């Protein structure tokens, strides 16, 4: 198993190295190198998954650490942790990665930096696998940054576009804010426990090395990394902008895997979060869920809708972690990865078709991503339409889909928390409100894109279904959105009971003093909350879908009227609650102004007076020294004197140089004898 893990980790790296150095010279620009590596990775993950199913052991774990370096008092270990969670995550990452690689061969066809694109994809796959396989905080941190780097490279892949390079920089910088918190957290744990390994850190926490307050702060610091990477409020601003990257990248990195790294990280660390930290996490997740879904309702760019939808779904997962139902957070991560990657790839297919239609019409002005320019495409793009519909249904949480199961479980966890702590009723409101809006905006997207009359007839006529390398991944991902794949061997579509819940079981918190409820208590609470949560969520999902049908399919309620009536919320939502503008006004502009003041001080005062003044003094001093001392005394007497005496001695000594090697050898031997004599005497 451990060999499989290492192979899974290193194969994409090898592909990256090959691609970046010789990719351009290989046939087909070397895309087969990356695809081959990722496919083998997928097969290995599948094999591991098979082994896991055969074993069917919830406690299966391989944890191996190697010493990396030893500085005496400081020994750092790195290592690999393989348990059921790792195996499932590896399968998700490699599956989506493989599909995206295949899809990209068609989507990126003809791009001048085709081979580099695949190199970056491989780099990303390598780093993501690294996060999943690491058994220590330092390893996760390193791969965390690598993932950030590959995300930066891929968002800014079309760096000729200013918007793309700006978005890449923004993603990098915003992530950095969270990562600094994460680094502080890691160091807090390291200085106390002397180890980065999860097992040591957990043991340290359990033995009471930390006071509850410190543990809360340290846990939240670590969680700050997850806030950045998983685009939680208030660091969510980078994810929508990241849609400037190629759409397959959005599907892989900004929907299915990388943004889920934060959730995965919180999942791993759940046992060390204190109750206070968990409540903060739950509020951040819940608020992000509702906040992002409100924004998604009014967006017109198809990818922006999906981006905010991703933010909101990540909020759900974080909410699940905060509510203690963290295995269900991971469950939602896995199901969401399939259908959200499917949705992104579908939108990519649509954009691809629109782009080509505009291209044929020589229209370079219109935006191929704007849903207002689409409409009625279901007859032209049959496969895309059907797969997108299935994924949308799954995201909306309609029964018989995987999304229903996982979202329902998350909501049940939230409901259970509120039942025990009624003061946190807002979390339930956030959760169910987001569910309602999710169903609404997703069907709004489908209706605006695929139904109704096309806005421009001539564009519509040029729309074609995408080629099979693009549609095949869509079909695969849409198929995986059915409940069956996640509940086997159980066939009940209304119960999440299956291999996943059997194999991935919640662990008890290691926070000392029994502050947190045990895993058993949480499961008990969720059991009670399950039925009401399910009924409520079905009602809400159909309510949202019904509203979307009324407004966008049958047009019985005018969307514009609604917008006018709800002017303020509409404006806020359309402008994304002015978060970016707020940051601009209260964070970026003041820091720019401050920089200008400092620059002024530096240049006008320090440079002109202090530095230049010093320079003048030095100049005067050196002129005096130069003439009086340097030339007259030093140069004339000492320097020239050395030269003269050398010449004198040389003239005398030149007769020693006979040019005969044997004479020289005699002198060498004389030297040897003298050394011997000196040694003998002393």
């Amino acid at each position: 198993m451990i060999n499989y893990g290492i192979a899974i980790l290193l194969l994409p790296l090898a592909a990256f190295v090959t691609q970046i150095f010789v990719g351009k010279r290989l046939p087909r620009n070397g895309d087969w190198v990356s695809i081959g590596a990722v496919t083998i990775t997928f097969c290995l993950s599948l094999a591991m998954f098979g082994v896991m199913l055969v074993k069917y052991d919830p406690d299966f774990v391989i944890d191996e650490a190697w010493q990396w370096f030893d500085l005496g008092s400081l020994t750092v270990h790195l290592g690999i942790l393989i348990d059921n969670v790792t195996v499932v995550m590896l399968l998700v990452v490699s599956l989506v990665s493989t599909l995206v690689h295949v899809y990209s061969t068609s989507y990126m066809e003809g791009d001048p930096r085709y081979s580099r694109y695949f190199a970056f994809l491989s780099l990303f796959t390598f780093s993501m696998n690294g996060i999943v396989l690491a058994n220590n905080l330092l390893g996760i941190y390193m791969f965390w940054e690598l993932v950030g780097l590959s995300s930066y490279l891929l968002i800014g892949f079309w760096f000729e576009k200013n918007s793309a390079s700006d978005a890449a920089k923004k993603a990098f910088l915003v992530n950095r804010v969270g990562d600094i918190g994460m680094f502080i957290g890691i160091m807090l744990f390291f200085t106390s426990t002397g180890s980065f390994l999860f097992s040591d850190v957990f043991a340290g926490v359990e033995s009471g090395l930390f006071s509850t307050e410190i543990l809360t702060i340290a846990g939240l610091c670590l969680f700050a990394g997850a806030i950045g990477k998983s685009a939680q409020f208030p660091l969510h601003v980078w994810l929508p902008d990241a849609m400037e990257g190629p759409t397959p990248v959005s599907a892989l990195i900004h929907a299915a895997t990388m943004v889920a790294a934060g959730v995965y990280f919180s999942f791993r660390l759940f046992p060390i979060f204190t109750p206070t930290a968990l409540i903060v996490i739950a509020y951040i997740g819940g608020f992000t869920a509702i906040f992002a879904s409100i924004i998604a309702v009014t967006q017109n760019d198809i990818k922006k809708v999906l981006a905010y939808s991703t933010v909101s779904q990540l909020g759900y997962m974080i909410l699940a972690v905060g509510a203690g139902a963290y295995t269900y957070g991971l469950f939602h991560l896995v199901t969401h990865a399939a259908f959200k990657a499917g949705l992104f790839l579908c939108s990519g297919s649509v954009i691809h078709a629109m782009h080509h239609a505009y291209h044929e019409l020589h229209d370079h002005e219109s935006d191929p991503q704007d849903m207002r320019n689409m409409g009625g495409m279901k007859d032209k793009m049959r496969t895309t339409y059907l797969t997108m519909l299935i994924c949308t249904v799954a995201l909306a949480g309609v029964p018989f889909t995987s999304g229903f199961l996982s979202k329902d479980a998350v909501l049940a966890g939230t409901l259970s928390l509120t039942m025990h702590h009624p003061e946190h009723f807002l979390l339930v409101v956030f959760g169910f409100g987001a569910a309602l809006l999710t169903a609404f905006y997703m069907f709004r997207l489908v209706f605006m894109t695929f139904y109704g009359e096309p806005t421009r007839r001539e564009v519509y006529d040029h729309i074609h279904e995408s080629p099979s390398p693009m549609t095949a991944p869509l079909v695969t991902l849409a198929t995986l959105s059915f409940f069956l794949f996640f509940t086997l061997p159980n066939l009940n579509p209304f119960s999440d009971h299956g291999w996943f819940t059997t194999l991935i079981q919640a662990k008890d918190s290691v926070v000392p003093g029994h502050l947190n409820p045990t895993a058993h208590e949480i499961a008990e609470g969720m059991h009670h909350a399950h039925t009401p949560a399910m009924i409520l969520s079905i009602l809400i999902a159909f309510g949202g879908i019904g509203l979307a049908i009324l407004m966008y399919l049958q047009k019985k309620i005018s969307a514009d009227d609604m917008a006018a009536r709800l002017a303020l919320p509409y404006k806020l939502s359309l402008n994304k609650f002015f978060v970016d503008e707020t940051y601009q006004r209260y964070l970026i502009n003041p820091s720019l102004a401050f920089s200008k003041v400092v620059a002024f001080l530096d240049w006008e005062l320090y440079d002109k007076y202090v530095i230049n003044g010093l320079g003048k003094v030095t100049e005067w001093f050196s002129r005096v020294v130069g003439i009086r001392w340097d030339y007259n005394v030093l140069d004339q007497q000492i320097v020239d004197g050395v030269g003269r005496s050398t010449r004198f001695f040389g003239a005398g000594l030149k007769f020693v140089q006979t040019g005969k090697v044997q004479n020289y050898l005699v002198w060498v031997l004389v030297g040897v004898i003298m050394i011997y004599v000196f040694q003998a005497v002393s």
Partner: protein
Amino acid sequence: MVGLNTYLIIGAILFSLGMFGVITRRNGVAVLMGVELILNAANVNFVAFARFGGMDFTGHVFSLFVIILAAAEAAVALAIILNIFNSLGTVNIDEANQLKQ
């Protein structure tokens, strides 16, 4: 029985004779023979130490390497001597005193 010192003295004699040859001979080839004598002196020492220091084969391996080096050195040195002969018309190395200038 013959002891270590005997071999070391033989080695020292060989070394001194070789050194004398290197210093005094005018012919390049003869200088080379002196160098071979010096190398053989070193080898005798290696093997003698191996024999009397508890039969450690490291000394043997080292003398093997010395023989290899001697072969390489002889080939290159003779090539150089040939070159000197071709360009100066002599192999007497005291006439090859271009180092003087």
